[in-house]
């Protein structure tokens, strides 16, 4: 008698991308990553996510690292396939870029060693993925199509089945439901997940959900039961709260349900030990398990953004009006046709709500970006916009954009090639497309030395070496003795 084949559940690591984006303001440097890469590679993840919009942007603006160098280094070090994520026609920033820039970006990522190319659009307008997908596939990468989950009367199960069909028609090799604010519940999963799995007809479906509402582990459990192939998780110290669930916890749930997973628990322990130590060494927070908060389902604003808003309002002496503004956010979202509360539209909603509340008259002032959004410049709006908003907006018919957003943008590479000269490499051309020259100057600084292995003892010695107050140290254990003097 043939033993019944055991079902599998796979894991995609986000520790080097979304986890520190959520908990550390994306401030993990390449130097912090390199000592633990070999262990992450051994742990048994099916894919490792190494790049996303915020990682790219923070590398350039704050860490002064060339993001292409990081991508290349990580792809060389990992034998596990690496995944890079881009946001529609905006790639890493919030501007829209022309098709030639979008195409070159996919080609460069493939050349640097990226194997899985993840694409999504903040409006779920999948026309914004066409250029990326075409170029990514031609360059030999697997295509991973994401759709973004949100709560609204129009974002029904049928809506997501429709998006699923679009992503399949584009030629996605994998599909993923991305829940950026942790709004999914097991109850919603029980109807949504089977609908999407069925529509996928064998193309593997994955779940990417955050822990703001503390329900994510239960939502992952539901996804496993509904036939999802994989889930995105983070090493335990950088999981939970605004981040994704812990690999260790989801692995335990999968095994309890009888799934086979390829994770090595000793490796996971070593990795989480390193990251817990890194939090302490760098003075950065570990993820804390969030409390269930029903208010999240009303305003849908991520926790990090609320604290940022509170700070911004404080500088304008408006801190006391936060509750009013949060209520107005929900109304503005409805008026604007239920944009997903995710970058950059989260900021649009919050700013418009603040202006409405402070001016005491709704839509007396409408920011230019919101006007563009309403014109369809960034893509299709999910639901009809309210009459009150449209009256104030007073759009002329020739302002409306109905074609694919990439089509109204002039090619960018000919001008960049002229400016940078014939010797410019693709990475430099793209950086020049994304950023002002002045921002790129610090990227020229020499690279630091990278260590590619470590142990608690290595870390102890390195840490002591950094302390200026220590002039003499002796460490002895297990028959070994080390002495250092300043």
């Amino acid at each position, binding site marked *: 008698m043939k033993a019944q084949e055991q079902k599998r559940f796979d894991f995609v690591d986000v520790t080097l991308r979304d986890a520190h984006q959520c908990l550390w303001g994306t401030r993990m440097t390449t130097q912090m990553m390199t000592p633990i890469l070999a262990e992450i590679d051994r742990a048994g993840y099916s894919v490792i996510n190494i790049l996303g919009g915020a990682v790219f942007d923070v590398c350039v603006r704050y860490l002064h690292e060339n993001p292409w160098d990081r991508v290349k280094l990580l792809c060389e070090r990992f034998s596990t396939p690496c995944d890079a994520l881009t946001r529609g026609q905006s790639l890493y920033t919030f501007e829209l870029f022309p098709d030639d820039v979008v195409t070159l970006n996919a080609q460069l990522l493939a050349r640097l060693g990226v194997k899985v190319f993840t694409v999504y659009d903040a409006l779920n307008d999948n026309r914004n993925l066409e250029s990326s997908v075409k170029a990514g596939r031609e360059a030999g990468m697997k295509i991973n199509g994401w759709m973004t989950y949100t709560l609204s009367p129009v974002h029904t199960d049928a809506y997501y089945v429709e998006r699923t069909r679009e992503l399949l028609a584009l030629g996605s090799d994998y599909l993923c439901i991305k829940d950026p604010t942790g709004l999914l519940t097991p109850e919603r999963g029980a109807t949504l997940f089977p609908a999407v799995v069925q529509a996928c007809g064998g193309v593997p479906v994955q779940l990417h959900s955050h822990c703001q509402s503390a329900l994510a582990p239960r939502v992952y459990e539901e996804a496993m039961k509904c036939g999802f192939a994989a889930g995105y998780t983070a090493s335990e110290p950088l999981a939970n709260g605004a981040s994704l669930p812990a690999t260790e916890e989801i692995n335990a749930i999968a095994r309890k349900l009888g799934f086979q997973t390829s994770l090595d628990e000793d490796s996971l322990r070593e990795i989480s*030990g*390193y990251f*817990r*130590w890194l939090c*302490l*060494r760098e003075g950065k927070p570990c993820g804390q398990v969030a409390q269930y908060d029903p208010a999240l389902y009303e305003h849908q604003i991520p926790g990090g953004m609320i604290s940022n808003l509170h700070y*911004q309002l404080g500088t*304008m002496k*408006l801190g006391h009006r936060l509750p009013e503004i949060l209520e107005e956010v929900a109304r503005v979202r409805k008026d604007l046709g239920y944009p997903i509360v995710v970058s950059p539209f989260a*900021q*649009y909603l*919050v*700013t418009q709500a*603040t*202006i409405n509340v*402070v*001016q005491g008259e709704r839509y*007396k*002032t*409408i*920011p*230019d*970006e*919101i006007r563009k959004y309403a014109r369809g410049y960034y893509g299709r709006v999910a639901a009809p916009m309210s009459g009150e908003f449209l009256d104030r907006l007073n759009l002329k018919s020739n302002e409306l954009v109905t074609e694919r957003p990439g089509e109204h943008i002039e090619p960018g590479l000919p001008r960049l090639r002229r400016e940078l000269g014939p010797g410019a490499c693709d990475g430099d051309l793209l950086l020049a497309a994304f950023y*002002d020259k002045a921002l790129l100057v610090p990227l020229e600084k020499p690279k630091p030395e990278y260590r590619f292995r470590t*142990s*608690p*003892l290595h*870390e*102890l010695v390195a*840490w*002591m070496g950094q*302390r*200026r*107050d*220590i*002039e*003499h*140290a*002796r*460490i*002895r*254990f*297990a*028959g*070994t003795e080390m002495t250092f003097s*300043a």
Partner: protein
Amino acid sequence: MTERNLTYEDLMQIVELVRTTSQFSEFRLKVGDVEVSLKRANDAVRPAPMPRETPVREEAPAARHEKTQASFSENLHLVRSPMVGTFYRAAAPGQPPFVEVGQSVEPDSILCIIEVMKLMNSIEAGVRGTVRQVVVENAAAVEAGEVLVAIEPLA
């Protein structure tokens, strides 16, 4: 060398102990197999004085407000900021300003941008006329209701 003997938990405990004993010039720890002893440089034991932040002397917005918001001739159309924000005279750094003094404008001509919480609000003239004064410096913070540009309407 059996490095596995020292775990990340041990490491974190040792580091916490070293940190919390920084006022002592000597430190010696023995836990199980592990022994750590340190000597600190004498002048390093006293914590270095924190660098004093030099208070930035900034003119109170209210004072500036009074100075620049002096009386305008009654026949001028005053374009005011809708919100607290930052005033910009051009669409992007390095680009020419939207308008100069003496320039004629239409009601829908854009005069400037007010940045509110990272979003850009184009401010239109509202009348046909001639720009007589640009009241605020480029990139200055403005209050809600502050006069930005004064326009002499076409009679």
